[in-house]
């Protein structure tokens, strides 16, 4: 079973992303939620995940710091990090991609956009299973 972490200080945003994942056929994935980067670090240390979806603007530890930590940790370096934020723009998106983000999407996302973005990762995971 795939495990997906959703990190956002808004419970509504986490629920909305969860719903989009269900609509695109990832409803069977185990969802791990956290309200900020620090809480995410604790949960990622206990439970490995296949995909991390995070907001950028969060209290305590924001999404950029979380991305930096993930990409700087050898065991997590290959973990795809999808950033979904309302604070995105071309300049920041470029920086986040250079830091190792898999993709950066602007809120509000739609299931179609999410599916299109995640398609390469879903395929790769399926290939690993075979």
């Amino acid at each position, binding site marked *: 079973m795939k495990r997906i972490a959703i990190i956002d200080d808004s*419970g509504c945003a986490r629920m*909305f992303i969860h719903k989009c994942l269900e609509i695109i056929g990832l409803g069977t994935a185990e969802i791990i939620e956290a309200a900020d980067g620090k809480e995410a670090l604790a949960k990622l240390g206990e439970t490995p995940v296949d995909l991390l979806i995070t907001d950028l*603007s969060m209290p305590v530890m924001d999404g950029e710091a979380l991305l930096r930590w993930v990409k700087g940790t050898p065991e997590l370096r290959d973990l795809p990090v999808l950033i979904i934020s*309302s*604070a*995105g*723009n071309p300049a920041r998106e470029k920086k986040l991609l250079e830091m190792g983000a898999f993709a950066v999407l602007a809120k*509000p996302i739609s299931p179609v956009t999410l599916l299109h973005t995640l398609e390469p990762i879903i395929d790769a995971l399926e290939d690993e299973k075979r």
Partner: protein
Amino acid sequence: MTEKEWQQAMTAAVTETLENMAFMEIQGDTGELTPIDDPVWVTLLVHEPAPGEFRLVLPKALLAAMAGNVYGPTAQLGEQQLRDLLAELLNTMAGRFLGRILPGEAFRLGIPQAGKGAPPPADPHACHWRFLAEELPLSLTASGAPLLQRRPA
């Protein structure tokens, strides 16, 4: 950017946000500053590059209708969940708006602060937008000199 494009940037931001998140269509900027009954509101600071504040005010009945669309009509939602939805809506609208009026510029938003009852007095120089959703009013305000300086003269 023209004044018309500035105005349309918010209309587009609100339309995209409500259609995608609350599955609700809006009527464009009505321009009428009619009172909002039983209001709930949320504010959001813009820290960089043009400090200012956004404010979203709407009737509690409209927020409840949006919540019903998002969580399902039978969901029993607490105050915190409603505030959370309100905050997420403004966060998304603000991001969409700034993305249009500050193309290519990095911006940093604060954490939304929600409240109910009469909202704090608005800056007299603030820029207002009024919309209708499900025949109920919804008000957006942008204030703060640095942010408003980005508005075309």
